């Protein structure tokens, strides 16, 4: 593909930018924002319900000084 053809392709791509002039926030942006806020609240809620602890520390029992006791799923046989 020549530089001229590539340039034309980019011009077509950017033509979309130049033609925009509306000052109203698009509906999809508002919807996107609402969904994002709901998801963030949901994540915060889950973290609060699960005790607020997150990361590796969540998998260590607080009364275990060595920190090696793990929650084992019932039915799984230890080696």
């Amino acid at each position, binding site marked *: 593909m020549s530089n001229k053809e590539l340039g034309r392709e980019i011009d077509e791509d*950017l033509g979309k930018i130049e033609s925009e002039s509306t000052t109203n926030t*698009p509906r999809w942006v508002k919807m996107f924002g609402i969904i994002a806020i709901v998801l963030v609240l949901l994540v915060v809620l889950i973290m609060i319900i699960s005790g607020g602890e997150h990361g590796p520390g969540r998998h260590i029992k607080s009364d275990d000084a060595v920190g090696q006791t793990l929650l084992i799923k019932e039915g799984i046989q230890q080696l």
Partner: protein
Amino acid sequence: MSMAPRTRKFALTAHVTFSVGWLGAVIGFLVLVVTALSTQDTQTVRVAWFAMELIGWFAIVPLAFASLLTGLVMSLGTKWGLFRHYWVFFKLSLTVIATFVLLLNMQTVSFLADIAAESESVDITGMWGELLHAGGGLLILLVITILSIYKPRGMTRYGLRKQHQRQSKMS
């Protein structure tokens, strides 16, 4: 700052390759999680933790950073910019959030993989957390892909101001 057409094409190819690679690597990670959750074999769960740690640190994390970096180059090297269009801004925000959560989650994966290597126990409850993280990550990457392809219209206030300034200069 605007890139030459050939440079732009090369940067775009790199960005698409890294981004699609990231998505594919997350799917591979999810396959391991689902396999571990659906088995009763302890050895399979242990191997899954090791494999998840390797895929995470040597495929998903590098691809996430490569995708973020090439995305920044693409935005700054073209007239799309970083904050001029809502779709670019959302895409950048989601990529930064996904990379940040990925790094935090990989600490947990490494911790549980170490436990699986050093002790005779395996943590299956941690797999549910991985299902949530990897599933959420995959969903975010799909949204990013859709935004990249459809490029929905809408300029930010900053973008409109820049456009107005450019038009004023031209006239």
